């Protein structure tokens, strides 16, 4: 923290104060913008060209910042660094230049009868899944992919430092990503369809494997990371993506989500750290579970919930949002500025202006709309 510029310190202070619900001089502007940055760039590369050229990604991310001047970013064009997957000859992403989209396929890597083995020896099952994900791979391909993954890590470090030092603009969260065990099976190991059926058909074994993961991996790792990582130069310390809750009914949440989430939240709170909750779909059904935590612990980025409803339901949480991709992509600049103004006026302290979805597709946003909003929020004084 000693090497931070005065400008960066001031920006970081504003962001952290906002999460603490302190009154600040202006509303922070938080970029939840992803692949749209490539489509908006005047360099006009094809998506596939951009995704395989990290120098180009850097240029486009800088071009974006120099045009819009965001205070904080969820993504520095580091979300889909696919070189390692590409060299291994297969992945679950499809880059479609014609449709200008990157799609992630739902997939099944783990068999239903491997839960018990995963509880006892996760690495052995990891290896089985790896061989299914990358069949026929050679030792040389794996070694080269490892070298390329180190390039990915270097890219992220380079971009965080550059945005901090050159633009005084922050990265949203530190290195710790905390999730309940089920998220891993839902998105990556069992696929959405199979994992959802497992909640009904394999309750007992799911508890066994989740309990084992919590005891042997998740809680010890979280404790170690909370005690050793210093990411105080980021806006929040910990990122918690909520994805699979959307597929659960309230009873399943009570059984498979909350009992594994609460100990992690409690431990993070005990360490005095902050949590950025990125919530796909809606959180309102589960709002009551978050109401008793102190102010200043959570910053919630809701996808479908209106920020005002989140504020009413979880008044102790700071909230980011207020602009929908529907409006940014199809409204006029005046309509977008009006929506930003209304959200800022309605929300008061503990609010950052942001977008409700990961802005990815061309029609998610129009340049003139985003420029108008940026000009408004940067000149607005509370």
């Amino acid at each position, binding site marked *: 923290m000693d090497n931070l510029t005065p400008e960066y310190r001031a920006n970081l202070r504003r962001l952290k104060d906002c999460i603490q619900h302190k009154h600040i001089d202006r509303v922070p502007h938080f970029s939840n913008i992803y692949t749209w940055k490539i489509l908006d760039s005047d360099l006009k590369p094809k998506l596939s060209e951009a995704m395989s050229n*990290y*120098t180009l*990604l*850097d*240029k486009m991310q*800088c071009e974006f910042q120099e045009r819009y001047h965001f205070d904080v970013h969820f993504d520095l064009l580091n979300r889909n660094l696919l070189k*390692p*997957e590409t060299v*291994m000859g297969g*992945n679950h992403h499809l880059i479609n230049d014609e449709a200008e989209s990157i799609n992630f396929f739902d997939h099944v*890597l783990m068999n239903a009868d491997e839960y018990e083995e995963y509880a006892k020896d996760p*690495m*052995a099952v*990891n*290896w089985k*899944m*790896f*061989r299914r*994900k*990358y069949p*026929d*791979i*050679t*030792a*040389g391909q*794996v*070694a*080269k*992919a*490892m*070298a*390329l*993954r*180190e*390039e990915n890590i*270097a*890219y992220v470090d*380079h*971009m965080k430092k*550059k945005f901090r030092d050159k633009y005084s603009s922050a990265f949203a969260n530190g290195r710790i990503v905390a999730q309940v065990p089920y998220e*891993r099976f839902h*998105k*990556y*190991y069992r696929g959405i369809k199979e994992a959802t059926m497992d909640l009904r058909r394999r309750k007992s074994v799911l508890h066994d494997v989740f309990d084992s993961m919590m005891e042997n991996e998740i809680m010890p790792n979280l404790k170690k990371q909370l005690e050793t990582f210093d990411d105080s130069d980021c806006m929040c310390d910990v990122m918690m993506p909520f994805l699979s809750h959307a597929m659960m009914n309230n009873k399943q949440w009570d059984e498979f989500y909350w009992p594994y989430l609460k100990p992690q939240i409690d431990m993070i709170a005990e360490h005095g750290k902050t949590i950025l909750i990125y919530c796909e779909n809606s959180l309102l059904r589960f709002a009551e579970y978050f109401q008793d935590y102190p102010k200043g612990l959570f910053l919630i980025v809701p996808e479908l919930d209106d920020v005002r409803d989140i504020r009413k339901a979880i008044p102790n949480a700071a909230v980011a949002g207020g602009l929908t991709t529907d409006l940014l992509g199809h409204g006029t600049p005046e309509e977008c500025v009006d929506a930003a103004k209304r959200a800022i006026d309605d929300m008061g302290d503990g609010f950052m202006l942001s977008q409700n979805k990961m802005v990815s597709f061309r029609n998610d946003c129009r340049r003139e709309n985003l420029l108008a909003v940026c000009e408004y929020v940067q000149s607005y004084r509370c």
Partner: protein
Amino acid sequence: MSEYFNYDDITNARIADIEAHDPAILNAKMPEDLDEAVKLISSLLTYMPEEKRDAAVRSFIAVMLVS
């Protein structure tokens, strides 16, 4: 030096180091046994300190499942 990210020199040197190994090892298919696979891949990572290789391979296997 450009202000934009360019890691080509480092990555290319590491890949050249890997490719300098015996083609029989480079082209070896992955064995079913994890320990054997880790040993095989680690033997190609000579650009990395020896004591870090095995852990790096195991970590890479886990990370690539959630990417």
